């Protein structure tokens, strides 16, 4: 065993010396390889973290959202509508929500206005970041998301004016700014009380935007949705699982788009790496001949080159992956964020919680390290099985 370890140590020593002797080639190769891993890992880590984040966010949202439909379009929920649902077994809470969009021409951004309705009719639970502010803002006051505050350059205590869709100017005092850690879901949020919301949007009294239902047992969610569809044929129940799936699909799609956009570059890098790795210079061939002539077995030469391939590819993989980790989780994926997050004027500024998918790491490892090791081994195999007497004639 000790002899085996000593042999491997000698092979690694020689490999490191060989790598150092061909500094330019190997440094270039390492860089290209690390860049390739960096790009792939960045996209994968970012999309995976977003998916993770979306799942966490949705974990706090109601199990079912009920929208009323008119001519296939989302319409307001009229008074008495909720009462028609009646009592459905398994439903713990039914709440009406008030929310809408407002376009702010000053910063050319869309805000989400939402009324904080006092319990039990609070529709606020869907916004986990705003959970802390469970009491509705006072009349004439709003609570805003930190993305909005940053973009408009306002803070707590300032007054913000919006011209409503009816043309009237409304001024609100900012009572608070939502915490930055909720920015992924609250960057564009404006929270008002119910009366201010209705006044600002000229919202008809006793109408709601939609209705949320809390269902304790996940097994019963589909049954509840079916009963809702039967009781209210003009409604559309949206399940949390469906929303979650949609988010996953969106992030999958964006990841795919990103990889498709980068595919040409990735392919070019891969070809370059393959070419560099698989090309054996005359000097390398000569060295293999010498090693065989002085008593190295074909297996020793192949093992040595395998070490070389593993050292280069593992270092590049680690360097690329660590750089991608830092890029995604410490620098908010500054290079790919616009594509992966989506386009918006009000970009949420947030740091993703590190989430690594073991399967993804393994996949990336097998799709980068193994092809490289093969690329190194194939020409070496050919060179290593040639007769050692060639060196005598060189």
């Amino acid at each position: 065993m000790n002899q085996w370890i000593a042999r491997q140590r000698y092979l690694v020593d020689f490999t490191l010396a060989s790598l150092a002797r061909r500094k330019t080639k190997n440094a270039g190769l390492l860089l290209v390889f690390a860049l390739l891993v960096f790009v792939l890992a960045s996209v994968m880590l970012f999309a995976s973290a977003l998916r993770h984040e979306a799942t966490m966010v949705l974990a706090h949202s109601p199990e079912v959202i009920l929208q009323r439909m008119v001519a296939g379009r989302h319409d307001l929920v009229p008074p008495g509508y909720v009462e028609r649902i009646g009592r459905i077994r398994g439903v713990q809470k039914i709440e009406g929500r008030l929310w809408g969009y407002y376009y702010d021409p000053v910063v050319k951004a869309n805000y989400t206005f939402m009324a904080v309705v006092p319990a039990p009719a609070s529709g606020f639970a869907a916004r986990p970041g705003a959970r802390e502010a469970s009491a509705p803002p006072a009349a004439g006051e709003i609570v805003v998301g930190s993305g909005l505050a940053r973009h408009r350059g306002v803070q707590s205590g300032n007054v913000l004016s919006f011209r409503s869709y009816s043309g009237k100017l409304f001024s609100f005092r900012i009572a608070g700014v939502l915490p930055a850690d909720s920015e992924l879901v609250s960057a564009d949020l404006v929270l008002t009380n119910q009366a201010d919301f209705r006044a600002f949007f000229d919202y008809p009294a006793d109408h709601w935007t939609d209705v949320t239902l809390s269902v304790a047992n996940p097994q019963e969610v589909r049954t509840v949705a079916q009963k809702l569809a039967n009781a209210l044929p003009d409604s559309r129940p949206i399940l949390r699982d469906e929303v979650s799936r949609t988010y996953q699909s969106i992030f999958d799609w964006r990841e795919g788009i990103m990889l498709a956009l980068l595919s040409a570059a990735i392919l070019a890098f891969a070809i370059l790496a393959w070419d560099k790795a698989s090309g054996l210079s005359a000097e390398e061939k000569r060295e293999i001949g010498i090693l065989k002539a002085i008593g190295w077995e074909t297996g020793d030469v192949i093992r040595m080159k395998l070490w070389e391939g593993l050292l280069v590819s593992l270092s590049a993989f680690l360097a690329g992956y660590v750089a991608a980790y830092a890029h995604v989780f410490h620098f908010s994926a500054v290079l790919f964020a616009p594509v992966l997050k989506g386009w918006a004027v009000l970009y949420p500024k947030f740091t993703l919680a590190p989430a690594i998918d073991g399967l993804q790491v393994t996949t990336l490892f097998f799709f980068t390290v193994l092809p490289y090791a093969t690329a190194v081994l194939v020409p070496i195999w050919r060179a290593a099985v040639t007769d050692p007497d060639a060196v005598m004639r060189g």
Partner: protein
Amino acid sequence: MIELRDIHKAFNEGRPNEYWALRGIDLDIAAGESTVFSGPSGSGKTTLLTLLGCLARPTRGRVRLGDEDISSLPERFLTEIRRRTFGFVFQQFNLVRGLSALDNVMLPAYPLGLPHRELRARAEAQLAALDLGHRREARVEWLSGGEQQRVAIARALINAPQVVIADEPTANLDTALSCQFMGILERLLDEGRTVLLTSHDPLVVESETVDRVVRLRDGRLVEP
């Protein structure tokens, strides 16, 4: 010690450019002797040396090393025999550029997995014995031709081989360095090693250190 019987060696056998480098060699090499293979270019000297040193196998014929027939051994076993029995000094020295003299000397012993301290001490001793102790850390491309050859000799001796094989050892050396080489050769013989050389340098062929000169022409032995 080494016995060759009816040795033939062909290159590109069965192809239009087939070439027979050796055509029926019968030869016995005694242990502890120095033998020089001499002859014009293309006479088959180097080919014969590669067969004797287990670098290649004959196309036909038998090679015996001691009691063992090694003519048809698989490459793995030939490598093992080559590593333990033979030390090679190539015409172009064939040192690995970019490595120090010491690392070059240690290279043939790497596959044996000896303890590093022991191997290093052995390599340093070989270099010191050839007056190269002070140059052990120098990269081989910085050494003079004579120094490079001595590194190549030290490398050939690192696994304590019974037989040292040198191909045209003085071809790249001036007279003084060639004489120095012959001195080293004498020392190797004094240590009880067998030495096999190819050369057409009169300084080697006519040297008193050489026990036997075997002449070749067109792949056949030339009777004296």
